[in-house]
């Protein structure tokens, strides 16, 4: 699974959990908050993405992420470790 596929999963979950993003182009350089997600929306987007990807990452490692791209990178690295 490459980064683009992981990004697709995160974007799908972001659209599932935040209203009004159906037609919006999602830029990984931005944060979810910039797309209107509350901090608890983000918690669920991350949990749901992890489930889709078959990953479990402790929440403490998620605190320092700046944008959607950072999250995708973290998921990608975790995927690589499993593989």
């Amino acid at each position, binding site marked *: 699974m490459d980064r683009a596929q992981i990004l697709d999963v995160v974007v799908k979950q972001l659209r599932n959990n935040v209203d009004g993003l159906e037609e919006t182009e999602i830029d990984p350089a931005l944060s979810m908050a910039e797309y209107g997600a509350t901090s608890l929306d983000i918690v*669920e987007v991350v949990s749901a993405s992890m489930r889709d990807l078959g990953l479990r990452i402790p929440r403490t490692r998620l605190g320092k992420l700046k944008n959607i791209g950072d999250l995708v990178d973290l998921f990608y690295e975790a995927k690589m470790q499993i593989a």
Partner: protein
Amino acid sequence: MAVTEQCFRVEMTEPGILEDLCLRPVSRRKPGPEEVEIRVVSVGLNFAELMKALGAYPGNQLDTPEHEPVTFGGDCSGTVLSVGADVSRFRPGDRVVAYSREVFSSHTTLPEVFVAKIPEHIGYDEAATIPVAYATAYYALYRKAALRRNERVLIHAAAGGVGQAAVQLCQLAGAEIWATAGNDEKRAFLRDQGVPHVMNSRSLEFVDRIREQTGGCGVDVILNSLCGEFLSGSLSVLARFGRFLEIGKRDIYENRMLGLYPFRNNLTFYGIDLLQASPEDSGILFAELMGYFERKELGPLPYRVFPIGDVARAFRWMRRAAHIGKVVVRLAEDE
């Protein structure tokens, strides 16, 4: 033939995804000597339960051990089914409101100190908005801050559950309310309630505005749930002899540092978490609080109600933080 009543509770196998909220069958529990069994009609959601559902409660204080389902508490209303041998305040059929860690189920059995009668003029959904939000605001503003007439109170997130309870308590006390809220709709709602000073909770402009409009004096009491620079900014406009009431969790559990310099002005900081109160103290507080509703000095909070089949949608609605007051889930029809 009597139909056996279906008993269920709201559960999640593991926290994280709200769609996983489901109803699972459970059996009823007979009340012990000082307990009451209630058939639940409505449940009021609190922010703590949402955080528990998402696995995001600070300090994991409410986290359930792994491999055990997550269950939910908070506020409920309903009718008394049976009472323990030593219970004299209630009898079967009484309309009651209660709170505990295990109320989000069709039937709940809990100590009578957490139970109060619903005043006749208040409905089940309305009653379920009262306990935790009001107990928190009441304990903070009346017990800790000892709020007095004409004092200035800054209520952050005043359109939320605790915020709305605080607005009514401040109006009753004759205090002057300075309120913040996160969007235009909430701010308009607060103005309609007669709140004289309404500001934005997503920007630090409120700091300058309070300083200017109070002639540099600031406010006497702050009910805070915001974190980071919003917390320190608020503290900077607390007047001499001011009381800071912290009901938020994040900064405390993250052990955020705060300078002591502002405290030279006789300031007091209260960290508030009613979960730590003893059952006896909680009972006294709850009974005292319900007296205000009996006398019609306080009213239920604004709310939106969801049927039990939409329980995930109810949690999700609260997660979006777009609601005013409380989110209530209706479990059964009232009779």
